[in-house]
């Protein structure tokens, strides 16, 4: 049985991390000026691309499909991380996922295009894509992020190995 007073005490004592330096002045100033800097995709870059995160930008011009960077076994489910690095928090961003080839997203079987509106926080936004390998061969997931007329695409190339296929 949890003692109520002790619980209240513990709840009140839960640490709250400091906000970034200058937070109070900054938020008050921004509120007055309603700063909505245009999102600078190029300055934002792609964030920390560790070996486990494969994230290749597609240019507007048609480009050859990237080399598969993630390998899945047939019917394997895996949460694949994708980083979207944003210089600033963005409300009402639209994210579209296009899924083709040998993979699907768990819970969205046979859906090749998924779209939703969301907010991105300043800094690294880590999306965890629930990918499933459905057939042997190459697959592609393209993430398109749109905000106020600016669009950026990221693509993730995958390869699903057939049973007994040991090719690396």
């Amino acid at each position, binding site marked *: 049985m949890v003692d109520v007073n002790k619980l209240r005490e*513990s709840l009140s004592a839960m640490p709250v991390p400091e906000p970034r330096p200058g937070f109070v002045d900054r938020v008050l100033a921004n509120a007055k000026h309603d700063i909505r800097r245009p999102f600078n995709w190029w300055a934002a870059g792609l964030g920390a691309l560790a070996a486990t995160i494969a994230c290749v930008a597609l240019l507007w011009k048609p480009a050859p499909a990237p080399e598969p960077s993630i390998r899945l076994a047939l019917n394997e489910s895996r949460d694949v991380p994708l980083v979207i690095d944003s210089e600033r928090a963005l409300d009402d961003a639209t994210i579209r996922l296009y899924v083709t080839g040998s993979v699907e997203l768990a819970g969205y079987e046979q859906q090749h295009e998924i779209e939703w509106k969301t*907010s991105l926080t300043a800094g690294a936004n880590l999306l965890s894509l629930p990918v499933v390998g459905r057939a042997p061969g190459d697959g592609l997931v393209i993430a398109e992020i749109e905000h106020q007329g600016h669009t950026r695409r990221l693509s993730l190339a995958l390869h699903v190995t057939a049973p007994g296929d040991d090719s690396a």
Partner: protein
Amino acid sequence: MAAEFDLLMRGHVRPLYRYAYRWTGDVDQAEDLVQETLTRLYSDVPRLREIERVRPWAARVMYRIFLDWLRRTRRSPVVYVGRSGSTGECFDDEDEQAEAPADTWNPEDLTERAFEMERVTAAWARLHEQHRVVLSLHEIEGYSLDEVAHIIEVPVGTAKSRLNRARNRLRELLNEGTNPPAPTCNSPETQ
């Protein structure tokens, strides 16, 4: 108007951040939530002038924004993992009581306290966001039920039952075990 807004709101920014952090569990999201709240409030300074108690009013505005965020992210088929806060120093807030001096505690109390804090923090992180909101407003910030109901814009009866459910859920989580899994922001329940 800018100077007036500053005067009206400066003393409330840190408490609002504290609420926002307890609701979201994430420093970036908490900062953004406060930013959006202030931006909205700035457009309504004439109304702010009329309000007797600004902080609950601002908390109400912030809660509406928070609900919008929750609705939008719930539709997402993927999981977002924002930057979580560092375990830096606690807020230096004049409303919080100072801790008792260390020499009045015995080491057993300290160990038990640290253990309890870990359990409570882990359980808190697993709570549904709306439970965190009512618990933080009532149990931590000391708002009355009427005030909580006003902030979250529900009838008092609804606020009371939500608070009871939140308390029960927190007790369940605390009683579940000493090592609950550490969740990520908005992560779906696993299995």
